[in-house]
């Protein structure tokens, strides 16, 4: 069995999720073949060198592929799928994966399953576990191969690099007449906020309700010596700047302590913080999915907890 894995990369580094997909392919006993789209063969080779656990790499090189271009990438993945007929096409459920998996599924007439958190092979049937309804339910879908899956980042651990660089086979794809171009890559300004490297993070969710209460959260963060972060609704509502967002569309973090209040734990958020060393979650809803991921949980009102905790932390110093 063979898996074709769409390898995401930026700034010359393959993403963690590509390695995770490789590990997942191995876990069902499949061959992992990476598809690397980059500006030139040299870049493809350099990236392939980082995929030590992969069995092979298919490279597509074109100027339009220097950074991720949804149109070009969809054509490349469609062409590679049609040419190599893998049993399973795998993408991460990232922005690119959301673009590509359903698009290629339609173009190649394959079935696909998204939000995948685990795979099991049962004869010719692939059982894909997905977290749906914001993590409130788990779906198990039996898919006859060939198929496509889009896997939640962080669903499995990437194994270490083993073996040498996989063999690279370049492939020609007609990328003429692309209907879009990337004009600019926007990197968030350095604001002094560095969630990725923070040792302790205090994250608040939608339940914060507005900017009026931010001070309470800031006090906890200050007393704890932690960076303050927010989940997507907090950032979308403009209560905190984008640099403080943890999750799929924000920053992925791995602190020693991830304390959270009023975050229900949507998969997109879990994706960004599930690997934290110690997770403590406060939520007023005892059914909040976050309690399935956190190490410690408490059902209580965050507005009562925050001042109480600030007091404890300050007194304890």
């Amino acid at each position: 069995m063979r898996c074709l894995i769409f390898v995401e990369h930026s700034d010359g580094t393959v993403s963690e999720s590509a390695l995770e997909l490789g590990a997942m392919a191995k876990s069902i006993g499949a061959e992992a073949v990476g598809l690397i789209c980059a500006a030139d063969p040299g870049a493809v080779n350099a990236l392939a060198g980082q995929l030590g656990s992969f069995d092979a790499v298919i490279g597509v090189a074109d100027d339009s592929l220097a950074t991720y271009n949804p149109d070009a990438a969809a054509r490349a993945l469609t062409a590679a799928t049609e040419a190599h007929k893998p049993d399973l096409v795998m993408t991460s459920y990232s922005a690119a994966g959301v673009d590509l998996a359903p698009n290629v599924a339609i173009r190649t007439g394959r079935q696909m399953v998204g939000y995948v958190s685990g795979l099991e092979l049962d004869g010719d049937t692939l059982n894909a576990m997905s977290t749906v309804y914001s993590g409130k339910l788990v779906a198990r879908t039996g898919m006859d191969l060939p198929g496509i899956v889009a896997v939640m980042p962080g669903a499995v651990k990437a194994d270490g690099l083993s073996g040498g660089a996989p063999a690279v086979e370049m492939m020609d794809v007609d990328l003429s007449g692309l209907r879009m171009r990337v004009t600019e890559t926007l990197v968030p300004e350095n604001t002094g906020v560095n969630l990725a490297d923070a040792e302790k993070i205090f994250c608040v969710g939608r339940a914060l309700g507005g900017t009026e209460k931010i001070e309470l959260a800031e006090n906890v963060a200050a007393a704890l010596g932690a960076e303050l972060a927010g989940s997507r609704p907090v950032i979308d509502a403009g209560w905190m700047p984008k640099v403080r967002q943890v999750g799929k569309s924000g920053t992925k973090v791995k602190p020693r302590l991830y304390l959270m209040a009023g975050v229900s734990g949507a998969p997109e958020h879990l994706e960004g913080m599930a690997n934290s060393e110690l997770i403590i979650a406060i939520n007023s809803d005892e059914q909040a999915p976050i309690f399935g991921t956190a190490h410690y949980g408490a059902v209580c009102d965050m507005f009562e907890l925050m001042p109480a905790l600030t007091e404890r932390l300050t007194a304890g110093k």
Partner: protein
Amino acid sequence: MHIAAILRLNPVLTEELEVDEDGRDIDREWIGLELNPFDDQALEQAVLLKEATGAKVTALAAEAEGGERLLKTALARGVDEVLLIEVGEENVQLSSRARAPLFQEALEGLAPDLVLTGVLSTDDIYGELAPQLGALLDWPQVSAVSNVALGDGVATLQQEYSGGISARIEVQLPAVVGLQAATQPPRYVAGSKLRDLLKVEVPTVEPGADFGADLADATELEVPDTSGGAEMLTGDAEAVAARIHEILVERGLV
């Protein structure tokens, strides 16, 4: 300029979800439906673009129930026209994969310059709608977009990646966009506007296309077992704060 906004109803997720007897669908007995929050953003973005450029906006839906009310709300929010695709009352659980050919057919009829819909729907297990429509219509498609501006035959979009990184992408029209966040959060629409539109007839269309094939018959749903999850701290806020403090001290985190 003509913009189509595709709107879908989702179960209200503030409620505890239960699975029906045969494990194929959520138990809809006690569940309410609401506009998918990302579609809400798409609708707002469509209206914002209308305000900025004078574009015409058509809102589309394909729902077994609640579609009329949904589209009346869209009218109240400022779209110009609405169209409800009839899917049959029995089809309460339709994936985007199943509905995509119906939307494709309607869009081919409307021939909009831009299609906006939400980047995802939390139950869209067989693929999100926007990329499928892009493939079916063979139009360029971009997901996870947080900003849309219209130019002459092109749209400038901002696609969001993890780590706060994003790219500005110029895409030729017609195109399909899976929207993550509108340029500004959805505004409130006063009840008076909705009230005035409640009597409006929502035009409906019988689809000629068949539902797309998905794996719905091969999917079983279950409530995840969270019992193996967090160790729960009990007591009031004071007690919880004290316990958290202890844990942090034990681990040398404070």
